[in-house]
């Protein structure tokens, strides 16, 4: 615990220092709030408009959650397929990598055309963007089991299913969690992009609207809300990861 508290000090000091410079800079130069509001003002707006922010956040969180679920599931299935079949790997993998070169921004408006202004185009963008790291990490994770371990399983007469369930899958878990954490971060970006392009609700929508009305403090408040959401999701996955990979952490959980 003490160690964790200590490791949090450095970034906190840096953050406070940056905010201090920002605050004094804005005050000394008397920058108008519609260009750059002071952190104190953003904080006040955040508190005052919290119910509004929360309402929009609920929409965005739904999009993110569905996006991760769909993108993650598709990624798991495709990653497993690519690992198991050379043919599928040759056919699909270059296309998957190529698809990542297409900017999501370019597709988002099309998705709006196809799916309308509702929830699904945003979910689609979040899923598309979070799908790739899951594919790559699933494939690499499944390949992580060492040749010696495979020898051991084969010499014990394990069938393919046992090798997959008892060796490959657990060996892939660390990699799968890495992929999931990247996917979470990206899907926050994906949902926001989706909302920018066309939406009636959500934090991305709120940002665009507030920006047009020169309510820059509200733009920042929405960004803050989005950041907190992202951190919360990331932290949630970290907790699940630490539970699932208990065996990896040296020092703690010595006995059960």
């Amino acid at each position, binding site marked *: 615990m003490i160690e964790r508290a200590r490791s949090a000090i450095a970034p906190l000091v840096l953050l406070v220092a940056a905010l201090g410079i920002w605050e004094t800079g804005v005050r000394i130069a008397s920058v108008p709030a519609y260009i750059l509001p002071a952190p104190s003002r953003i904080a006040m707006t955040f508190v005052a408009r919290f119910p509004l922010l929360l309402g929009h956040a609920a929409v965005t969180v739904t999009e993110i959650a569905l996006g991760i679920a769909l993108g993650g599931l598709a990624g798991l299935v495709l990653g497993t397929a690519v690992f198991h079949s050379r043919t599928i790997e040759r056919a699909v993998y270059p296309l998957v990598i190529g698809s990542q070169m297409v900017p999501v921004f370019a597709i988002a408006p099309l998705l709006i055309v196809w799916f309308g202004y509702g929830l699904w185009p945003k979910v689609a963008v979040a899923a598309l963007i979070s799908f790739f790291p899951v594919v790559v990490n699933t494939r690499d994770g499944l390949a992580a089991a060492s040749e010696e371990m495979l020898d051991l399983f084969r010499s014990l007469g394990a069938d393919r299913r046992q090798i997959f369930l008892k060796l490959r899958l657990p060996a892939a878990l660390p990699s799968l969690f890495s992929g999931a954490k990247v996917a979470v971060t990206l899907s926050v970006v994906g949902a926001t992009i989706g909302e920018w392009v066309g939406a009636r609700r959500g934090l991305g929508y709120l940002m665009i609207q507030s920006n047009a009305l020169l309510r820059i403090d509200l733009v920042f408040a929405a960004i803050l809300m989005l950041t907190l959401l992202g951190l919360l999701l990331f932290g949630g996955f970290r907790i699940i990861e630490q539970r699932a990979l208990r065996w990896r952490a040296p020092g703690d959980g010595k*006995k059960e």
Partner: protein
Amino acid sequence: MTLHTDRPSGGIVVDRVTKTFRTGTEAIASISWTAPEGSWTTVVGPSGCGKTTLLRIVAGLISPSAGAVRAAPTAYLPQADTLLPWRTALENAILAAEIDRQSSAKVRGEARDLFARFGLSGFEGTYPAQLSGGMRQRVALIRTFLARRDILLLDEPLGSLDPLTRISLQEWLLSVWAELRRTVVLVTHDVEEALVLSDRIVILSDRPSTVEEAFSVDLPRPRSRTDPRLIEKRAAVLSLLLGVRS
């Protein structure tokens, strides 16, 4: 305690086995040897001479290019640390039984007995990352024993341990073997280890390997490292190995 002493062990016949890999590397020129039921054979030879390849052939993991191996089902302990890090020590020990779909409760009880007997009590629920090298190796050996195969193939099981742990594990191995009487094939670099443990020693030549010499160690157990006969044998084997190299 009962350790299935009633089970008969199978012997091994290696008949003119050769192995050339697809890359063109000729690992084994021709090897023949036999191991009677319940005997302890140790294979020594220069590094990279194909000892592991030979063991994997006997384990049925790779097939020989020519020749044949006749052996009962084997339990193979690879050279690398092969405990599964996500399983506790006890869960690792019962892996083979689990793969064979045996009743878990019975094997768990048996594993607990073995843990108690070999100084691992209280570590059943510990993950490998928190065990010392000697403990990990003991767990891996218990796993190999619990596989209930007639033949145990051990690839340098003590190679990475410090000398003291090594000696105590050698004694431990010997006591388990004396009780179980399975056929053991051990690969090692350590000539002293070979002489202390084995009934027969097979010395392989450099790659592509052949049997340079095979002889019985006719000394009563337990053997003392300071026994002059053992020291004399050790010198003979070492000079033979040095000759093989040059």
